[in-house]
């Protein structure tokens, strides 16, 4: 080995070094991401629990079973509801805030940016619990609303399906708007100020400049934040577990939460079935990622 290494040419050494540098990271990704994914795919065609696991007969039984699984369908509906309502509101707010903060005449810019970015400093569990305490039946918001006379008596926000969903959406908007704003701020700083000056001279108003200059120039950033948010929302877990426990009666449960409960919640899970559910999540994420690549291609 020693002599062989000595025999390598300088170019050969460089080649070996290059591959060596990326080996640990590559191996880890293959073993910790791709291999489990392949295993989940294979397991999704098996049934039985624990050591009694065997190939399912018929093979697709796990996939047909989920069509009758009302809880999973409910979880899927919930997740998509969060996606459709929360992601657009959050991104529009983020882009608006970034645009406002990018004004060179604005004072206290740093202060505003820090405040708006601050929610990112909390862990997902922490902010879920903070929101849980604020929206509790005996809690801050009920007190405020009753004192203002908007509510006659305390309302069980987290125990009523529509309001529990609303609280989760509000919490998500609170946590992630500042995060996305950071991307837009970075994107906006790359736009030359002279472009805006020129637009002003041409008589374009704020709204027109926003739509005709800011949005097109930020398009790559918008696409990326959009996809990241979709990916994150499809995998929502911490909020569902800690804010509402998925309740009431599964009205706020997300797909990841349901799969987790099925796998580790009570006793030994039916891993064949949960793997099939996981694969559905994977397919959804993959479809959206492919759309991302397609849209991203038209960038130039």
């Amino acid at each position, binding site marked *: 080995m020693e002599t062989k290494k000595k025999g390598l040419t300088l170019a050969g050494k460089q080649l070996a070094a290059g591959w060596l540098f990326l080996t640990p990271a590559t191996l880890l990704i293959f073993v910790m991401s791709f291999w489990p994914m392949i295993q*989940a795919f294979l397991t999704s065609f098996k049934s039985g629990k624990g050591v009694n696991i065997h190939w399912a007969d018929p093979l697709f039984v796990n996939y047909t079973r989920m069509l009758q699984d009302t809880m999973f369908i409910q979880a899927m509906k919930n997740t998509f509801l969060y996606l459709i309502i929360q992601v657009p509101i959050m991104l529009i707010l983020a882009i608006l805030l970034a645009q406002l903060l990018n004004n060179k005449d604005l004072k206290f810019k740093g202060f505003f940016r820090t405040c708006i970015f601050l929610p990112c400093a909390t862990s997902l569990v922490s902010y879920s619990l903070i929101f849980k305490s604020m929206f509790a039946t005996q809690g801050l918001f009920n007190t405020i609303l009753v004192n203002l006379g908007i509510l006659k008596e305390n309302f069980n926000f987290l125990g009523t399906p529509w309001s529990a969903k609303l609280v989760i959406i509000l919490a998500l908007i609170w946590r992630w708007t500042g995060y996305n704003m950071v991307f837009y701020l970075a994107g906006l700083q790359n736009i030359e100020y002279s472009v805006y000056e020129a637009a002003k001279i041409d008589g374009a108003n704020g709204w027109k400049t926003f739509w005709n200059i800011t949005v097109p120039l930020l398009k790559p950033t918008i696409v990326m934040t959009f996809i990241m948010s979709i990916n994150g929302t499809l995998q929502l877990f911490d909020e569902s577990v800690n804010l509402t426990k998925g309740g009431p009666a599964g009205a706020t449960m997300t797909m990841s939460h349901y799969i987790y409960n099925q796998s580790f919640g009570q006793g030994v899970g039916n891993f064949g079935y949960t793997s099939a559910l996981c694969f559905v999540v994977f397919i959804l994420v993959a479809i959206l990622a492919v759309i991302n690549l397609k849209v991203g291609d038209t960038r130039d």
Partner: protein
Amino acid sequence: MTKKKNRSMIQRRLIPTYIFLIFWAFISVFPFYWMITAATNNTVDVARGVISFGHDTVINFQNLLKSGQDGARLWDSLRNSFVYSIAQTLICLFICSLAGYGFELYHDKYKDRLFGILLLAMMVPQVATLVPLFTMMSKMGLLNSVGGFVLPAISTPFMIMMFRQNSRNFPPDIMEAARIDGLPEWKIFFKMYLPVQKSTYAAAGVICFMNSWNAYMWPKVVMADNRAQTMPMFIANMAAGYTVDYGMLMMGVLFCSIPTMIIFFVLQKQFAEGITGAVK
């Protein structure tokens, strides 16, 4: 004179902007204020929605110290979180920077292709890896250990991409010069590349630490033993009971948030750079 007038007119036109920004800044900061005041009140006052500072800080803190079982109390969970997060951050920075450096500065078409494949890992949902990884870790005897905690998280496409992007500003001429001087390849990485990439390491390190401090789903699976639990698990368990002492809970949430908040305030620039780092 006219300039001054002009300036005040501009500021006047910005009034709606200021109002909106103050409004959103208030919304962003208020839950933090709530968390801090609630940690000083007893649970009855928290339920009543008292938003001023109370006198129960010490009692809440004492209750917090008593909560949980032996070996799974506040300090244990805090220590666990610090150990796991620091370990994960250091290993992740080393492995991913090495890979990013390799992919960018030794790149050829095979490596580019491999990099494209690695990016696909971004699509793998975390929940799908739970069962296979749990089985793997239990076979390797890594349940409830630092190894089990960090292994799935120390190599991510995001981090590799971030180091790869930032390696672009590292001039290949320097490497050539170093080679002529007879420096071996690994020494070029440690002696020449590492020192000039300090800001990248700082940004990546902040993100990595935050992610591992905040991790919840995977630790919940792999750190099932109470003594191995992390800070987020500690407060989540505290809130899972039927009767929750909200004053004590918020004290716990505060403890869970202090490290990340300190990092946020001290290294805000690096944090923002880290978030956007991989997508320049």
